């Protein structure tokens, strides 16, 4: 990793340092709110980590510092690498915080949150990291193409679209009994299949995620996603006027 990329990581850590304590506190509070459903709990942790990683970009947008950093020693490529590095570091820190919070909450409120223990595992960690990193890998190319806020809109639209499509597809991958049932009958038509997809996804994670072959496959998918996302970000950022 080049010196400018590391300098950008240091810069991101410095600019967000003031928010670490309140972020960690609110992280704990939010997780506490959703402790009764392990998968909503995990999704909350992943979302908060995404927000934490995006905060450095949001601060840069607030102070319009992109031209400044583009003018400092380094290339557009080193700035892109620095952002991916920050994302990785924040995801790792988010995972550590997530696991620590999970252990703490399970110890304190074990009777109300009996399934949390299952998240402190390779399965839980892989699911958390896959969610956090995949979200970042989709978001960052948008960021480098459009800038922070427009990227947020595109990411939200694309994220919802892709998630709904993926969940609808996942519903067909599992035995029909798995995804049926629950309170989906109250939902309008298109949401029913999405809710089935969510149940199917949870089933797939619980059944397969811990297996070495699945973890290896997840690592390969992640590596390919990192490569594609990085190449797109480089291409977009190289040609962007700041």
């Amino acid at each position, binding site marked *: 990793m080049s010196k400018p990329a590391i300098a950008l990581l240091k*810069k991101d850590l410095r600019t967000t340092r003031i928010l670490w304590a309140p972020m960690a506190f609110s992280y704990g509070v939010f997780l506490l709110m959703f402790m009764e459903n392990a998968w909503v709990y995990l999704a909350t942790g992943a979302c908060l980590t995404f927000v934490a990683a995006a905060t450095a970009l949001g601060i840069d947008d607030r102070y319009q510092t992109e*031209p400044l950093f583009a003018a*400092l020693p380094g290339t557009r490529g080193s700035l892109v690498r620095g952002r991916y590095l920050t994302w990785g570091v924040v995801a790792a820190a988010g995972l550590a915080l997530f696991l620590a919070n999970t252990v703490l909450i399970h110890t304190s409120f074990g009777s109300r949150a009996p399934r949390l223990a299952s998240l402190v595992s390779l399965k839980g960690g892989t699911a958390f990291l896959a969610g956090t990193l995949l979200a970042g890998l989709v978001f960052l190319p948008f960021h480098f193409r459009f800038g922070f806020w427009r990227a947020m809109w595109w990411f939200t639209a694309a994220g919802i679209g892709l998630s709904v499509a993926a969940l609808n597809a996942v519903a067909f991958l599992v035995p029909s009994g798995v995804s049926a049932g629950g309170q989906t009958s109250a939902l309008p038509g298109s949401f029913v299949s999405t809710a089935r997809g969510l149940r199917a996804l949870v089933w797939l994670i619980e059944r397969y995620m811990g297996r070495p072959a699945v973890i290896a496959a997840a690592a390969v998918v992640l590596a390919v996603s990192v490569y594609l996302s990085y190449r797109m970000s480089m291409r977009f950022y190289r040609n962007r006027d700041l």
Partner: protein
Amino acid sequence: MEYALEIKALRKEYPGFTLRDVSFVLPRGHIMGLIGPNGAGKTTVIKLILNIVRPSAGEVKIFGLDNLRHEEEVKSRTGFVLDETPFYGYFKVAGAASVIAPFYKAWDGARFEMLCREFELPLTKRVNALSRGMKMKLALAVALSHGAELILLDEPTSGLDPVFRRELLERLSGLIQDGRTSVLFSTHITSDLERVADYITFLREGDLIFSAGRDEILEKWAIVKGGTELLDEKTSKLFRSVSRGPYGFTALTADKEESRRVLAGRGAVIERIHLDDLVFFLGREGQQKEEAARE
């Protein structure tokens, strides 16, 4: 001659504005002023040099190295002040510098602190609490704290009080005394340039009008004043831009000697030009051409 900066046929196309094939050179150890009316392309040139915006065509060489192929090296030897001063508002002055310092191998923290003291910039004050002039001083302190050999300044004197402005100009003059450091400096305050610039580059609506030594400009260009009866076909060819008033005309000429010869004994006055006059008349010439094109 060794050049700190060589720009060849640099072009940038935006919707509604094109910087058209600008070429000029800045020899090492000199100060160049970049002048022109608003929207002339001064900031675009500086942003292109720093690769903040991508060129549509052309080439920029800094110390003989291509600014895109050797980006990291040339930037580490370049200091800059942008027209906006984008520092994190909630940081203290010292903290703002510490964010930038890791990017430079040759960052000199002691020099930064010394410059802050000289500029009366309190290290413990938050950036949010600084005035525009003070933020400009902070940007200058950063630009001068890593031994830069080329310093690019985009409107650095705007927002500065006259005393500090004079001090800054003296400092820039002092910097180039080593024969190694060069400065490219865009400004609207042309009187600043008359004090310190060795070369002047004039841009108008994306076109390079001229790039020449200050003394050469002052030698060749002049202001001509006289009665309107002097304005005939022959004299009009000598003038780049003419301003008519009730008592006569004032015109800009790019050939002082020829004007002197043609107008000798006809009651015309030929005056030394100031850069302000140059900006005014050449800006006006641009407007007149634009109006003529519209008609």
